[in-house]
């Protein structure tokens, strides 16, 4: 199976570059700079040195014994991206893109953020490289992820509240694209997921592929064989693309992407673009999209701000069609239960995003049996979610 897109960024019928002409030259310039950088040993050496000494890589692969016992089946290994500097996998990508921005002579970074993890990671990279940073964030997300807003501000970033639409990640990304058009000469747009126009989906996956490369070597070292299954949550899909990328050719390893089912797929209040969306065009790419019959984008819903997006990276759409990756979904309630499980049994507070992957593992562990192993990408830590979880629990206690 081919893992790279065609020359114009298409993964089968998906991907491409659906942007205003004003941005096309910038995307072409970015693609050329990116290709050149990836072929440059010095760039790769520097990238990996920063990942090691600053981010703290490699992140451990941890056998969660008490969780394994509780879920009653397959041995559960957690890829501890929550232990990265800034608390999530997002930093792998922002270091890569900020290095590329510096190579290209750009002095400003700009980003959209949902949960705030990508915003914090971009602001961190900007601080590290002495660059200006602007972050666009929906007011609804600012409310539910307040600690991350403060972190970005401490790091020197300007946070622009976005009021339009649902005031979540989708609207933040629209506003970031508008702002980029106006400052395309000196500004590098750091997209946080494997979404957006070419080359972002393949570039972000490449920077995140370190997760999969490490995890594959670690599981082989620990168990002597490949895992039966790898599970990761999917909003735009960067942590999933990063961990899956190393296992794509290991056809016996089942890859499972977990979308957010919110209140349940049947309620219409969810974020399962692959599970319940149709092909459409948004934010620069063709992919699965939550939309109505008139092609208007519908609001996503998830308790997790990082999964609350009506689209999905184009390569995930392609993997779904080819059945290389199986996609399923987990409700808010199931994710919160998995959050409790990991917190109480292992003393690890997972991000609500990652809790979706844990909840899926809970469903599958028994069936796979005690001799099987599952690698779960624990993409981030849950500290940012505590207020939100508390509020959710209070609201639903009586129900």
């Amino acid at each position, binding site marked *: 199976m081919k893992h790279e897109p065609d020359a*114009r960024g298409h993964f089968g019928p998906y991907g*491409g*570059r*659906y*942007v*205003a*002409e*004003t*941005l*096309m*030259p*910038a995307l072409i310039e970015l693609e050329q700079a990116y290709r050149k950088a990836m072929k440059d040993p010095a760039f790769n050496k520097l990238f990996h040195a920063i990942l090691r000494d600053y981010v703290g890589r490699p992140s451990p692969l941890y056998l969660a014994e008490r969780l394994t016992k509780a879920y009653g089946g397959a041995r559960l290994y957690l890829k501890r991206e929550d232990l990265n500097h800034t608390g999530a996998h997002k930093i792998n990508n922002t270091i890569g893109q900020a290095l590329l921005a510096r190579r290209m002579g750009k002095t400003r970074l700009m980003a959209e953020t949902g949960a705030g993890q990508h915003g914090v990671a971009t602001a961190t990279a900007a601080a590290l490289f002495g660059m200006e940073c602007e972050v666009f964030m929906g007011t609804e997300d600012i409310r539910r992820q307040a600690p991350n807003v403060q972190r970005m501000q401490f790091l020197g970033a300007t946070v622009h509240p976005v009021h*339009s*639409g649902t005031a979540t990640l*989708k*609207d933040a990304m*629209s506003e970031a*694209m*508008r702002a980029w*058009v*106006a*400052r*395309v*000469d000196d500004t590098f747009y750091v997209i946080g997921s494997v979404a957006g126009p070419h080359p972002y989906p393949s570039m972000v996956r490449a920077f995140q592929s370190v997760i999969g490369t490490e995890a594959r070597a670690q599981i082989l070292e620990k168990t002597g064989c490949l895992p039966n299954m790898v599970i990761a949550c999917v909003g735009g899909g960067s942590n999933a693309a990063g961990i899956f990328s190393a296992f794509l050719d290991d056809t016996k390893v089942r890859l499972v992407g977990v979308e957010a089912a919110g209140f349940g797929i049947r309620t219409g209040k969810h974020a399962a673009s692959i599970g319940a969306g*149709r*092909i*459409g*065009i*948004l*934010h*620069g790419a063709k992919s699965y*999209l939550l*939309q109505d*019959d*008139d*092609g*208007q*984008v519908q609001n996503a819903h998830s308790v997790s701000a990082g999964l609350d997006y009506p689209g999905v990276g184009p390569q995930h759409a392609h993997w779904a069609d080819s059945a290389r990756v199986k996609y399923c979904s987990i409700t808010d309630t199931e994710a919160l239960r998995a959050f409790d499980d990991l917190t109480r049994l292992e003393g690890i507070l997972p991000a609500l995003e990652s809790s979706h992957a844990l909840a899926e593992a809970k469903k599958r562990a028994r069936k796979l049996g005690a001799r099987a192993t599952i690698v779960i990408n624990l993409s981030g830590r849950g500290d940012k979610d505590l207020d939100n979880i508390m509020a959710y629990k209070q609201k639903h206690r009586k129900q």
Partner: protein
Amino acid sequence: MNRITHTFQTLRMQGRKALIGYLTVGDPNLKTSERNIRLALASGLDILELGVPFSDPTADGPSIQAAGQRALASGVNLKQILAMAARLRRTSKVPMILFSYANPLFRYGYDALCRDAARAGLDGFLVVDLPFEESAELRVPMKRHGLLFIQLIAPTTSPERARRLLAEADGFVYYILVKGVTGTRKRIVFDTKKNIDRLRTCTALPIAAGFGISDGEQARAAARHADAVVVGSALVEAARAGRLAKLVRELATAVHKA
């Protein structure tokens, strides 16, 4: 001959420049919007752009974003927009261009859309987020139905790229005056002359200049170098304020005399 091409030929023979006006269809509802559009046509528009509202208008500034939100809240969809175009066509010969983001068109289905748009009397499409590289899928059925795909050129487009894009263009070229989203600007730094002169070396098609123009003075300045001037956000705002006819007359006078 397509009405767009015919209009530019006629105007060129008369030594006149064209005023192109944009209005979001359905803002604030279908009925008021149709009345506004007829008013604008009667006040001197040479070419009409019918804006299809979209939930995520990434190339638009606050005015057209808000117009789109109002239109969507009123429940307007592409089918109704095509029906309105057909009604307008019964009484007007002015060229009409559907101005849209890709997704509403894609969801409608490109083949069905081209058939229905041609039947309604539309003359071309302008799709903001469908660059040349992704446009073949739409251009093929458009051509079959005699519709013109209007190519956008930005200040960031290199002459080499412009030449390549315009080799297959038709009707006119839409030159984006500013790096940024749509919307009125108090002061535009017009590199208009230099940029449009440069663009002339890439194409023989008429050149329309747009983005940021809001009054007669700016329109006149742009029309001195371009063959047509596009005004959008300012018309949307004027329609809200009940001074649409006055603004269109002011712009038309400025453009036609330039």
